């Protein structure tokens, strides 16, 4: 596999020149070329290089591009995590993508939306695995995913109040007559 | 058609193979596994045969570092509360009273010679909450808090799962607190209060300590 060595080596090398970051730079350059200002500059941290999608509406197009461009081929979405950014007043998702079995490179993409009533385009049609991840992000943070096929809570009960992983979450007093905080 | 007969043939042979295996085990049922512990050199020489151990009478020995019931050797405890802070499930409750100067000798030293500076009227471990992760014992500076090999300690009441290790009775604690107050009044400079919260002290003071 392509990235067989870089994880183990990156501890010895200086972080900036780790192959993971180098690969991410190349990827970012291709995306930047196509989408210009819709994406932010690459954050070249050694542990998880990422870029942010500044134009939230462009996320679906970028996702498709990431998946289908022959130089990128990010066919595998390893993870999609919801995130709360209370300082910026935003919610977001972090996607860890990987080109499995083809190029072997990885990159992380962040997409943010407004804290109240924020909508992020759903990529469940690009990577089917995103369907449940997005449901989980909605369940925990409350942002909705536009054109998601099945936007429901997944882990919490349907009638649970609030979104538990938001930093300002207050747990409800009772649930169907059961006292919640114990 | 040939596949039809091949299926039948392989069906019959694999079924017979499987039956052979179970029959071998059936006739092997005259042997029984011993109850040697894993640290025994002969462990894998005694595992043939029926593996059931009839629990209360035959027990797999728990290894030396087995992490089961939490125990606090209160004589060695210096009341530093590190375990309370480290516990992920908050199952330890501790209350300390600073030892007055003239009581230091009474309070004594730990087994490795460290002067104890706190009375510990309350050291309660709720073993119903404890998940035996062992983090508390790894942070304990005097190694007085440790998990024992006792793994079977079920109780009929949840109350009984709370183990009390405190070294003062309620009355004694009251007396010590008063003494500390007096010392503080006598001393010229103000000292930070060692939180004299009037918490309810459980009735049975050194209750279910190891046994």
């Amino acid at each position, binding site marked *: *596999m392509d990235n*067989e*060595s870089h*994880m*183990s080596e990156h*501890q010895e090398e200086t972080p900036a020149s780790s192959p993971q970051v180098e690969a991410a730079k190349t990827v970012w350059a291709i995306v930047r070329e196509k989408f210009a200002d819709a994406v932010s500059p690459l954050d070249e941290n*050694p*542990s*998880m290089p990422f870029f942010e999608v500044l134009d939230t509406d462009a996320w679906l197009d970028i996702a498709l591009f990431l998946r289908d461009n022959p130089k990128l081929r990010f*066919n*595998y*979405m*390893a*993870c999609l*995590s919801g995130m*709360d950014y209370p300082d910026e007043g935003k919610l977001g998702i*972090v996607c*860890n993508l990987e080109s*499995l*079995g083809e190029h*072997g490179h990885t990159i992380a993409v962040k997409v943010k939306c407004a804290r109240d009533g924020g909508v992020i385009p759903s990529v469940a049609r690009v*990577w*089917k*695995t995103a369907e*449940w*991840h997005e449901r*989980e992000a909605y369940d*925990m943070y409350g942002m909705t995913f536009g054109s998601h096929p099945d936007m429901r*809570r*997944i*882990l*919490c*009960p349907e009638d649970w109040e609030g979104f*538990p992983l938001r930093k300002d979450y207050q747990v409800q007093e009772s649930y169907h007559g059961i006292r919640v905080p114990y | 058609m040939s596949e039809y007969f091949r299926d039948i043939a392989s069906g019959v042979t*694999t*079924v017979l*193979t*499987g039956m052979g*295996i*179970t029959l071998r085990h059936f006739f092997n049922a005259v042997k029984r596994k011993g109850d040697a*512990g*894993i*640290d025994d050199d002969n*462990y*894998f020489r005694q*595992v043939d045969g029926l*593996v059931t151990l009839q629990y209360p009478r035959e027990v*797999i020995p*728990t*290894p030396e*570092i*087995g*992490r089961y019931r939490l125990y606090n050797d209160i004589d060695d405890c210096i009341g530093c509360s590190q375990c309370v802070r*480290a516990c*992920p499930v908050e199952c330890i409750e501790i209350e300390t009273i600073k030892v007055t100067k003239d009581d230091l000798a009474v309070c004594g030293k730990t087994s490795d010679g460290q002067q104890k500076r706190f009375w510990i009227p309350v050291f309660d471990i709720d073993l119903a909450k404890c*998940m*035996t*992760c*062992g*983090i508390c014992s790894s942070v304990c500076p005097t190694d007085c808090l440790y998990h024992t090999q006792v793994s079977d300690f079920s109780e009929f009441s949840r109350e009984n799962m709370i183990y009390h290790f405190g070294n003062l009775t309620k009355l004694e604690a009251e007396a010590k607190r008063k003494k500390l107050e007096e010392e503080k009044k006598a001393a010229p400079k103000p000292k930070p209060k060692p939180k004299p919260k009037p918490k309810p002290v459980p009735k049975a003071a050194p209750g279910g300590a190891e046994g």
Partner: protein
Amino acid sequence: MQELGLAEQGSLRVTPDGENRIVIEKDLSSEEMILNMGPQHPSTHGVLRLECRTDGEVVVEAEPYLGYLHRCFEKHAEMTDYPGIVPYVDRMDYLAAMNSDFAYAIAVEKLLDIEIPRRVEFMRVIVSELNRVASHLVAIGTYAIDLGAFTPFLFCFRDREHIMNLLEWVSGARMLYNYILVGGVSHDFPKGFSERTGEFVDYFRPKAVELQKLLTENEIFVKRTKGIGMMPADVAINYGWSGPMLRGSGVEWDLRRADGYSVYPELDFEIPVPDGRFSDIGDSLSRHLVRAMEMEQSLNIIEQCLDKMPSPEGFDPRAAIPKRIRPRAGEVYGRAENPRGELGFYIVSDGKSTKPLRCKARSSCFVNLSAMKELSQGQLIPDLVAIIGSIDIVLGEIDR
């Protein structure tokens, strides 16, 4: 009576009546029935609920409902310091706690950028491979139960017992070890552990062969699993499958090789993928076979590690464990190969606190199960059971 095209679908008959109007008759109309499989059902491996729309024995679609075992791992993690999260990680995938700890340790260590002693790495690999064997034994055993064979299950548990004894000896607990800590392990191997592990490998090899003869090669078992729950490789990747599930679809992808974490690059092992001779690539049988073959590879890895492990002289397993874990501000996605696939941790640190700002667990079963809806379409109920079993779910990890 003139029969039109619709009639071929079964229950509809279209007949022109006297006035040449077309009347649609319904005879023996077959209604769909909603069948709740779970949350208490013997073969949902815990508290999973599948809402099946069935037409007779045929499942039109099965929709999984999760959350019955939701224990708020991510919320807990935000309120607990880094070493305190490890016991919670144990309880996510309780069948492979060592592997889960390993993944978490990798993620945090990546954030901390600390050097791990070489012996510790070998110890971690040995215990997690032992746990992988134990976990696969449960997977195979419960799969046998799902298909109605009870005896292989107990044989699996009999052998797993020895692994649990071994791991209890080294860590002090039988299932939820809290052994692999950030920066090290909690105890050094006890005296004689390496020999006993070697003896276990020798003991287990013939048992694995017996298991294969009793279960895997059994014609009924093959007939029940071959060609059931087919998943082509590209769809599997798109669904984010990983681990034995993905390899069952013929993709040679193993994080131990791909990421090459710990000492795995130094070890010689194969990534088993089905060759399509005994099973159809991508079916339930392939996934079962991959698990069975992986046990063999794990035994090889354990043997090599026992040979290569540095001597214990002057060794402190806790030497590299930081007194207080307060990583630099940053974020990391660390992952490891769990018995069920890729277990990843996305951890965000603000650089000030000893508690993570965010700790998301990318659970392998959660992702693997998300394909259930597609896999279940048009299957019989017994096949549905066979498919769930082949996914090898642990609800503790799915619901977290």
